[in-house]
């Protein structure tokens, strides 16, 4: 079979400004439709990824708590956690408290931590924590606090004689920490664990929350299940993102339903392609029949037709990719698109797309284009050459 004269065929198809303009408009509308879908999926993936990575930053890989409420961080615990691909773990004593600033009280979670183990497990660096506290960035912003300022914390007393009253302590702010999650940045306050134990008159090692960092490339879910099976009498283990699992599941479902609904946009863009195909068919049928008369087989014409449509699709995909990048870099970063932090967990979203997202959107679009191409080619195939010549050149 001789080589397809693609260049000559392209020149025939795109003769004149109107065809080129129409083609450009078709490509842009198709690319825009795909980019809308990709951006929507990407925003949802971005939300899920940002949330998970922010949760991982402050929670390690696994969280555990004692069935009885409290546990002692001792050698027994160390032995129990051994042989489970654990890189590090840290025990936390956390209580609910009120932080007082500017004559206003705010419910907070006061976390007593061992800063070295905490850093190894969570990547949150509280190295300047001494006799004071670390506060979250949103709390600092809200009350205009900075390092060296004082904050008072009211803690419920567990002593019988103090029933109904609170222990009030003032701490210097040793540092400000950013978790990447609005709620945590507003409510988490860190203090050395021994200080909190002393305030609460607890004996050393008493904890009510543990965080675990696993070795690289380990199966988180598998280890979680193993730990839950082996230590089910004493502890309960959960994944780092479990506290937001309902939200993450909702996003997953939303992503699926929206991607199906957004196919409507692709259908609208496909209508543009249909219009383009009709335009080309009407304008160039004479030429096509003439070319067939001169020896261009239907098979070659089909190859060219699908090559043309696939090229439109490929260029549209490329444009869609750049549109998404543009949205992500220049549009989503505009100040007025920052999400109000007191409504959403994350204060900023970004588009994160995985290979599957591209494959899904591009694949479905290609299927649509090929379907339309097949229908239009079938119409041309059905018309005998002589009938076409007579009709077109009458």
């Amino acid at each position: 079979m001789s080589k397809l004269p693609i260049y000559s065929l392209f020149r025939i198809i795109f003769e004149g400004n109107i065809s080129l303009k129409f083609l450009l408009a078709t490509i842009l509308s198709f690319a825009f439709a795909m980019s809308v879908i990709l951006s929507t999926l990407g925003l949802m993936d971005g939300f899920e990824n940002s949330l998970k990575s922010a949760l991982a930053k402050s929670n390690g890989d696994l969280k555990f708590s004692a069935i009885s409420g409290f546990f002692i961080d001792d050698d027994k615990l160390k032995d129990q956690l051994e042989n489970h691909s654990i890189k590090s773990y840290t025990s936390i004593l956390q209580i609910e408290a009120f932080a007082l600033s500017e004559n206003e009280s705010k419910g907070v979670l006061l976390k007593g931590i061992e800063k070295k183990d905490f850093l190894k497990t969570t990547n949150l660096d509280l190295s300047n924590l001494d006799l004071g506290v670390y506060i979250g960035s949103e709390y600092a912003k809200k009350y205009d606090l900075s390092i060296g300022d004082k904050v008072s914390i009211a803690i419920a007393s567990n002593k019988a004689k103090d029933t109904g009253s609170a222990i009030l302590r003032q701490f210097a702010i040793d540092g400000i920490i950013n978790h990447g999650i609005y709620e945590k940045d507003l409510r988490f306050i860190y203090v050395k664990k021994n200080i909190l134990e002393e305030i609460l008159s607890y004996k050393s090692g008493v904890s009510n929350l543990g965080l675990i960092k696993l070795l690289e490339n380990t199966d988180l879910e598998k280890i979680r299940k193993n730990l839950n099976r082996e230590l089910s009498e004493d502890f309960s283990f959960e994944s780092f993102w479990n506290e937001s699992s309902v939200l993450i599941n909702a996003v997953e479902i939303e992503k699926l339903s929206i991607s199906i609904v957004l196919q409507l946009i692709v259908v609208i863009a496909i209508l543009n392609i249909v219009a383009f195909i009709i335009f080309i068919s009407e304008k160039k049928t004479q030429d096509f029949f003439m070319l067939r008369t001169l020896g261009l087989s239907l098979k070659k014409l089909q190859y060219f037709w699908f090559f043309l449509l696939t090229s439109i699709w490929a260029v549209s995909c490329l444009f869609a990719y750049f549109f998404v990048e543009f949205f992500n870099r220049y549009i989503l970063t505009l100040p007025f698109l920052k999400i109000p932090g007191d409504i959403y967990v994350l204060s900023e979203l970004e588009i994160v797309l995985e290979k599957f997202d591209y494959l899904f959107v591009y694949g479905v679009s290609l299927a649509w284009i090929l379907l339309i191409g097949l229908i239009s080619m079938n119409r041309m195939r059905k018309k005998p050459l002589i009938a076409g010549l007579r009709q077109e050149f009458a």
Partner: protein
Amino acid sequence: MLLKIENIKKSYGKTDVLKNISLSVAENESLAIVGSSGSGKSTLLYILGALEKVDAGQILINGIELAKMNDEELANFRNINIGFVFQFHFLLPSMTCLDNALLPAKIGGHKVKEIKKRVLEFAETLGVTHCLKKFPYEISGGEQQRINIIRAISLSPKLILCDEPTGNLDSKNTVVVMNLLKDVANKVGATLIVVTHDVSVADSFNRKITIEDGQIIS
């Protein structure tokens, strides 16, 4: 014998367009097919040009039976062996006249450089060298028809089929174009078959057949 057709039949719906037509045409022979409008002469020409299939009968061109070829083979056969000249020139407006003339070579994947040499020679012979770099809409109807003829013979086909090639021309240009076609066919050693309703054109051929109501009557 270049072309031999035996008992071919063709109908569209309930209308029988060709009824048991048999015909033989020798190599280098020139033949005029005449007949009134709707007599089936153009259908016969398109069948000879492998543009249309028959319902019954056999068509042999150079011993090759067209009915046994698939679309790909027929397209290739048309490209190499048959040159078409239509009443309207059918030059593609997006291309220069030279590119139009080279279209069969490009479609068939032939060596364009060699064919271009031949096209330039034909253009000189037909006096349209000055038109080659121009677009079809920039030249006259007579010049367009000559470019059309060059396109038809650019690959030196065995068979040149013309459907009312002078139907759109005045009497002066009719004589010029017919003489050109005969000279060119003679030069490339091709068989020339011309469908016409112009009796004077038909009379200028050594052999002519008349078709009426789908049958050869003389």
